């Protein structure tokens, strides 16, 4: 940076010298045109436009900023949503439009030492990858920021649609309603039902599921006690 400044200063000095000389010679020349061109030759500006569809720029530009590479260079948005960040030396920069309400995707802008501009997608992992973006930048808001988490609200529909509740309620309905729909007093029907039950439960020797469950639960509940009982059981086995 420092090294760059010195030739610049020297050139400026030269320019002013030329200028004063020119001034003395003839009053009418556009005097500091030389200086102007020089000072702009290694500082460039990034231009573009931010668009939030459906919202007037006046409503959001006052809280927005354009940040180039963190806070190294700062630009502001005009009342029509366009922006220009001045005084930027050649390099590669990430340009972000910061607004507390709207989300904008950042863009990487490369500026060559000759002042050629190129905009591309930001890719922090493959930094050399180039997916071109339009320049001057056209940055569209991708919607409002979502800052908040949704509260878990409690509603009857949520409660009823809960699979656990459904699993509870449906069998209940079957138990209550089925006997009413089907006449159980009819002996033919009863026979049919018994048959179908047998079909479902082909091996009557197998223990019933509910029985198994009750056994399992009673067993786990008294796990500390079972130790004692098993001790008691062991001699019984031996005795046999």
């Amino acid at each position, binding site marked *: 940076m420092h090294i760059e400044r010195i030739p610049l200063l020297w050139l400026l000095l030269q320019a002013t010298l030329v200028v004063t000389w020119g001034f003395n010679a003839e009053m009418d020349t556009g005097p500091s045109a030389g200086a102007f061109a020089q000072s702009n030759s290694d500082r460039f500006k990034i231009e573009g436009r931010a668009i939030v569809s459906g919202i007037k720029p006046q409503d959001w530009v*006052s809280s927005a900023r354009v940040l180039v590479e963190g*806070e190294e260079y700062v630009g502001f948005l005009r009342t029509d949503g366009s922006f220009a960040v001045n005084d930027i030396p050649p390099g590669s920069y990430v340009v972000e439009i910061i607004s507390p309400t709207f989300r904008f995707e950042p863009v990487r802008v490369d500026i060559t030492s000759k002042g050629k501009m190129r905009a591309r997608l930001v890719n922090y992992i493959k930094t050399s990858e180039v997916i071109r973006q339009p320049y001057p930048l056209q940055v569209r808001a991708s919607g409002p920021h979502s800052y908040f988490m949704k509260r878990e609200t409690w509603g009857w529909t949520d409660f009823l649609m809960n699979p656990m509740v459904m699993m509870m309620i449906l069998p209940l309905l079957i138990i209550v309603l089925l006997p009413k729909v089907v006449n159980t007093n009819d002996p033919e029907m009863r026979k049919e039902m018994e048959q179908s039950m047998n079909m479902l439960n082909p091996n009557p020797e197998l223990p019933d599921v509910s029985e198994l469950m009750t056994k399992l639960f009673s067993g786990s509940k008294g796990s500390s006690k079972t130790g004692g009982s098993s001790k008691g059981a062991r001699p019984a086995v031996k005795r046999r």
Partner: protein
Amino acid sequence: MAKFILLFLKLLAILYTVQAVFEDQVGKFDWKQQYVGSVRFAHFDNQIQSSKKVLVATEKNVFAAINTRTGELFWRHVDKTGPEGNIDALLLQGQDAVMVVGDGRILRSWEVNVGGLNWEMVLDSGSFQSASLVGHQEHVKYVAVLKKAAISLHYLSNGHQKWIENLPESDSVDYQSVYSEGKGEVFVLGLVPHSHITVVVYSIDDGEILKQFTVEAPWMPDLQSSCSVIGKGMLTCVDAVVSSALTHCTFLPLQSIGLEVSSGFRPVLVSSQPNAARPPLSEFFLQIGPDQHVLLQLNKGQILTLRDFKPAMLVSFATTGEKTVAAVMSPKNKTASSINLFSAETGRRLLDTTLIFTMDPNGGKPEKVGLITNGSGFPGRVLWTREEALSDVVTMEMVDLPLTATQAELEGEFGKKADGLMSMVLKRLSSQLILLQAWLSHLWKLFYDARQPRSQVKNEVTIENLSRDEFNLQKMMVMVTASGKLFGIDSKTGTIVWKHYLDNVPSNAAFKLMVQRTTAHFPHPPQCTLLIKDKDTGLATLHVFNPIYGKKSHVTPPLLPQPILQSMLLPLMDQDYAKVLLLVDDQYKVSAFPSTKNVLQQLQDVASSVFFFLIDANQGRLSGYRLRTDLSTELIWEVVIPAEVQKIVTVNGKKANEHVHSQGRVMGDRSVLYKYLNPNLLALVTESTDQHQERSFVGIILIDGVTGRIIHEAVQRKARGPVHIVHSENWVVYEYWSTKSRRVEFSVIELYEGMELYNSTVFSSLDRPHAPQVLQQSYIFPSAISAMDATLTEKGITSRHLLIGLPSGGILSLPKMFLDPRRPEIVSEQSREENLIPYAPELPIRTEWFINYNQSVLRVRGIHTAPSGLESTCLVVAYGLDIYQTRVYPSKQFDVLKDDYDYMLISSVLLALFFATMISKRLAEVKLLNRAWR
């Protein structure tokens, strides 16, 4: 498929750790205060009578519009820091505010109502001198910018340059101001010091020089402060004499109009030009003494004295429509001053326009008087004040609030020695009665408040009603600002409870705030000590105060005649429960504060285990010392980092109030990996002196502060600062800029002892034979960083989050889980068991993790975290240009019912169940009875 599973797992992990603010919690636990900094330029937007704006440009490169009724900000634009964003001039014309920025580099015009930019122009280089609006035929159309060697005229509507001209003889003449009065001419005033004034007149149309002449003024040292254009084309300058000159030159001794300048004072002129298209007023103020102003009128080359104001601190003109008034602020007594309005034409006082302005003697000095004039008259009270010192908070602490008087009464009972059974019982009874009474009055207050509409219930915070809440969530924030003003702010509401202005604080002071005694030791008041150190000389002073009331303590701090190198707060306490502060001077002598006999005795006992370190950043030397029993010191180790290659940027220890709950981490195979928890560990960050992007590097060295042993050393090549670092528990997280890939990167180092703990009961730096295992991993962070810290909780059970202040204004709460060097690249059964997130190079930034949602906090300089009484809750204060306070729950609120807990639902379900059992019981009884009858 594997990728899909990975993604799913990642999602699961993210869902698991999600924590965000609920929409209905907005403003419930958090508050934000926005500041702009100390004001450099201020203009009232008085184009429309009903306008309520004052536009300010400040030292902090902020341009803002403040509501004149409430003092709140309409909008604010924050430019970059440093000289490139410096605001040189602010001019207001109608709805446009024109600003010159960065030493005349950029000319900006703002639309004042919307707060948007009209246009921005880059000007030629050259140091800025002055800017002025230029009017032509009753309309203000241009703005003139005067630089060292050129003057340019720009259109006000679009910023385009109308013309630019070089100034004649600009290397010898110092052109200082530009002026116009709407007649097609622009006057440029230059000065050759102690010789003459040069006036160049340009034509507005084409920039042609119309006239050029000089006026001899050998006595004139400076144009800007002592000269001013008054009336129709009169340049009035003041020295020991008042002279007027522009077209002709006359000298007028001040004595002839009966004025005398107090000796040693340089008189200053204050004038006003309400409309750039018209000549300035012919009335002006002349300050002839530190507290004396004279209102003068220039009339046909004669100067008349309208009124003499003595004492008067500040004066100002204000214009509404056609009328101009002068406001004079004069001190009334020590704490109050009055502002009076006078008619500018006659100097007569306007009726009913006295405003008494009470000024806190601790409040500092006012700098500017601005006036709001509206049709109805002058409001006779202070509408608002803004504490702009808070835009520059340097350091802060959070102090527990004291107990209430009744609670204290109860506590006091236990503190005293027993004096008989009977009196003890009586005391007990009486204190219980007091408690009952307090509870009843509290209930009554609740009832009373509930009956009133919500808007009328005012919860004014005063020192009297500040007391600790049951979970210790409300604390006192003690903030130290760069200007030397201390603030006590209630953390729940953000109300400023006290302020204290410290005199004679050097401008380049470094501050260190320490809590010597907390509120836990009841009869003794809490005590904070502020060490103020002049950075150049190293000389320091101590300010001891009560953090709850802000009052200076009666304890007299020791005078420190020698420069101070290091200060530290020992865990030792004197008989009054104040922690001992040790100060090391440049002779390596140690002094203690408080330095009672008891303290010195204790110090002698523990001297052999007191170690400290000193940093000499210039020479790259870090040295460790030990305390001897006679309070002299002994050098025991020294680490030299070659200063030609790299410089020490920061040295970071651990927080003293940090607790670590678990000694190790349970692995997937049920073994335990023990953490290396060295409380003496220092993290040292260095940056290379070579700034070339290929050769620059960032180094990190972990050193044991007692033995000087280097535990670990790492270098990040092709990287440079600024480095932000957080050092806590057994990990160090730091952030740097990778010059190769042009991105911000995070790196985390974790230290582990291994599968066995060497000595599980106590940690000693002198007795740790095994070097710790070091794990490190790096990540990409998709944003720059302005500040970083980690959450802190009471017992350290809650998982940790990193709080990262971003330049965009968000404060990101990033789970430490994402910065874990054990994140695997390939997911295995074990890593899944451990809940490790698979490695991904880029760290996510999700707006749901912004703890401050849309309340942007700009230029965050520091984030302060403090534990609350609830383990789940951590209090966070982010300070910079703004101050933001909130609570975070890194592992959600596991120890307290959620604030949206549905009491109605649970009680209705319970009631329903209760009635259902009653009814079914009854039915069952009936059925049993029926069966028995059958």
